């Protein structure tokens, strides 16, 4: 497969702290790869290598065959950050037009992209005054106007409502059909399950698992027991049948390969438990389980 991003054996450390311990990662033409992992897994460092903010201490990072530390290579890159504060003095139209000129394109290239992202009516508005969702659309417009071959999206839909998210991914799907690869980092794992062709799970600076969302879920034969219980997390983690515990503040989710045995223990220790559900694991549970096991 032709790749737009190739990372080979990338290592990076911050002094004594190793952030990346030899990471390999590819993004193919038109492919969307979601990079998942807990905080401190090395996602941000890896993204910073890909966008040229950092240089790998060992290994190599190539965007369309070029080093992203070199400005001309970044011509192929589009980046959408989780949150970006725009200067108070610049207007929406000026920013998109400026992005087109910076990419070596005509100013007129801005118009269609602004229309595509419903920004035309906001062209005269100061960017700093936009809502969070409008700012994300503006960032995407500035990235897309340059016709990038690789889009790096860092929590791109944070703060967007559901229709805006749908529209965001719809636009990206159209770009992917035209060959733009996407590297996505997000905490919305189920969203990445819906949009990513492949998921790469990073933990403690290493790739511990990779594959399609379905492949990752299949690797984890666990079932998820969801329940409201008075039992504290520490006690739940002690139960031999529990592989992992996730607490969303409302319900507790327990991974297990032996749900029947687990249910017997739970009912014995907390007869008042409510809202009991037993399900197959989703991607979120699969990722949590893979990290728990340090899967390779």
């Amino acid at each position: 497969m032709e790749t737009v991003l190739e990372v080979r054996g990338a290592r990076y450390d911050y002094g004594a702290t190793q952030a990346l311990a030899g990471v390999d990662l590819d993004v193919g033409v038109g492919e969307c790869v979601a990079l998942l992992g807990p905080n401190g897994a090395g996602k941000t460092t890896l993204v910073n290598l890909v966008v040229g903010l950092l240089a790998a201490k060992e290994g190599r990072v190539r965007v369309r065959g070029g080093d992203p530390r070199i400005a001309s290579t970044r011509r192929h890159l589009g980046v959408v950050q989780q949150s970006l504060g725009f200067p108070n003095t610049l207007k929406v139209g000026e920013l998109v037009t400026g992005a087109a000129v910076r990419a070596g394109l005509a100013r007129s290239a801005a118009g269609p992209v602004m229309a595509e992202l419903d920004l035309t009516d906001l062209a005269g508005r100061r960017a700093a005054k936009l809502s969070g969702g409008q700012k994300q659309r503006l960032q995407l417009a500035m990235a897309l106007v340059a016709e990038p071959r690789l889009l790096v999206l860092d929590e791109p839909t944070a703060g967007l409502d559901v229709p805006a998210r749908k529209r965001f991914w719809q636009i990206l799907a159209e770009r992917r059909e035209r060959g733009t690869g996407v590297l996505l980092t997000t905490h919305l794992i189920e969203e990445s399950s819906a949009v990513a062709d492949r998921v790469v799970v990073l933990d403690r600076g290493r790739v511990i698992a990779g594959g399609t969302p379905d492949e990752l879920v299949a690797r984890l034969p666990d079932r998820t027991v969801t329940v409201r219980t008075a039992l504290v997390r520490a006690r739940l983690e002690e139960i031999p049948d529990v592989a992992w515990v996730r607490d969303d503040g409302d319900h507790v989710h327990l991974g297990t390969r032996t749900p029947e045995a687990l249910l017997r223990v739970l009912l014995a220790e907390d007869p008042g438990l409510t809202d009991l559900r037993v399900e197959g694991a989703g991607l979120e549970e699969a990722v949590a389980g893979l990290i728990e096991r340090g899967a390779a």
Partner: protein
Amino acid sequence: MNANVFGVELTDELRAVVREPAALFFSIVMPVAFFALFVSLFGKFSSGGVSAGTTMVATFGAFGVISVVLMNPGIGVAADRERGWLRAKRVSAVPIGVTLAAKVVAALPYAAGVLLAMMATAAITGSLDAPVPALLRMLVVLVVGAFPFALLSLAIGFQVGSGAAAAVLNAILIPSAVVSGLWMPLSIMPAFFSDIARFLPTYHLAELARAQLVGGPVLTHALVLLGTTIVAAGLAAVSYRHARS
């Protein structure tokens, strides 16, 4: 990287001048008002056949240009860094040097504005006694000679927040201006001020500017400013590499 890209970067920076005119007050009105006060009080005194008002155009002009070039780029880059805008620029296809150069060049209209306003004020009070070519030479010397201060400004802007940058840069600017005789002649200041001033680039820039109006040696001042530029460029490069995100 073509001129269009630099043009876009510069235009973006200049829009800030037009759209946030409050900055003009601190950058131009304050130094010029300060100058107007001093020149109206002392401008007609004369020393060595040259009016004080003429030499004050050079010394206060140096202060005005340095304050603009020292404050604006550093505070701007610190604000850009805080809001994530500098990161967006660093990952774009535009070399960061182009972006930073635009930020520095955008400060030059302020610098020229300060100088022209001071010259006009001195002329109105009847204390300006220098030919136009000499004044133009001085303007060029001050604008070009302020370059190391822009680099120092960027070095600080890469490391601290915008509020702290304003405080740190003022803490550098004001004592340097006083000790270098930019506000009051060193001849009426305690002797140790002169001893310290020789080590300050602010002093050498003012002297180089003064030499354009009243004559005098320039080589030492020019060499000190060149050395300062090299050191400031090194500081700015190291600071950029270790810029806080």
